[in-house]
């Protein structure tokens, strides 16, 4: 029987992965749109490396990533229940994150009059979009890693 990862270990890697995602998006966005590009480039790539490392460690090696991306025809009834629950939670969290980003953007446009700045730097927004795509794919896996008593997905 495979050794199970402790809850603390799992929590650390999930939080670390999300923190690295935030740092990667922030750094690479400012690399693209900021004035002092080189300042953010190095931390951006370091964060990206750490993001990929933690992703392999907690999602790939445990088999959770392939599980949440498996077709439902290849799942049995217990696995379908686990997948449904994780997708339901991930959907709620993702909706809150996206709506918060929209509200923050609207507030920054209204309060700081940043509309022109955003319009002139749309290339930076693509980094945010890439980050959101990763978040949408990794959230169901994160929910499973944090909530399931055992990680038997290989």
């Amino acid at each position, binding site marked *: 029987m495979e050794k199970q990862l402790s809850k603390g270990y799992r929590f650390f890697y999930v939080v670390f992965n999300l923190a690295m995602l935030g740092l990667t998006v922030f750094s690479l966005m400012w690399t693209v749109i900021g004035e002092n590009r080189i300042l953010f480039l190095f931390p951006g790539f370091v964060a990206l490396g750490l993001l990929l490392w933690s992703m392999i460690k907690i999602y790939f090696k445990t088999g959770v990533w392939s599980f949440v991306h498996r077709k439902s025809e290849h799942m*049995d*009834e*217990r696995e379908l229940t686990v997948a449904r629950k994780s997708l339901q939670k991930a959907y709620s969290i993702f909706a809150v994150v996206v709506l918060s980003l929209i509200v923050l953007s609207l507030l920054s446009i209204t309060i700081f009059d940043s509309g022109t700045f955003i319009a002139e730097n749309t290339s930076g927004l693509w980094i945010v979009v890439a980050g959101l795509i990763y978040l949408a794919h990794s959230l169901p896996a994160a929910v499973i890693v944090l909530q399931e008593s055992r990680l038997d997905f290989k």
Partner: protein
Amino acid sequence: MKNRKIYNRISILRKGRGISRKELARKIGVNFQTVGYLEREEYNPSLDLAFRISEFFNLPIDMVFSTKPMKSIEKILMEKETNKNGKTTE
């Protein structure tokens, strides 16, 4: 609504037949991890799966699953035997 815990004898029956979790999983059409969850009583099977399991072991469903903690089959047989002997001596 919280589901009741369903107890079962899958582990004992499987070991008795000398088959692996993977083999049983293949026969009843689930992934082998699910057999582990069933044996540890961490997952309540659907009615369809419960029937597939009991049909595989060729036993009535109430011999495999129960809502109360289950005695081992040997214990039940021994109790039956004791009762029988008790009645004959009377």
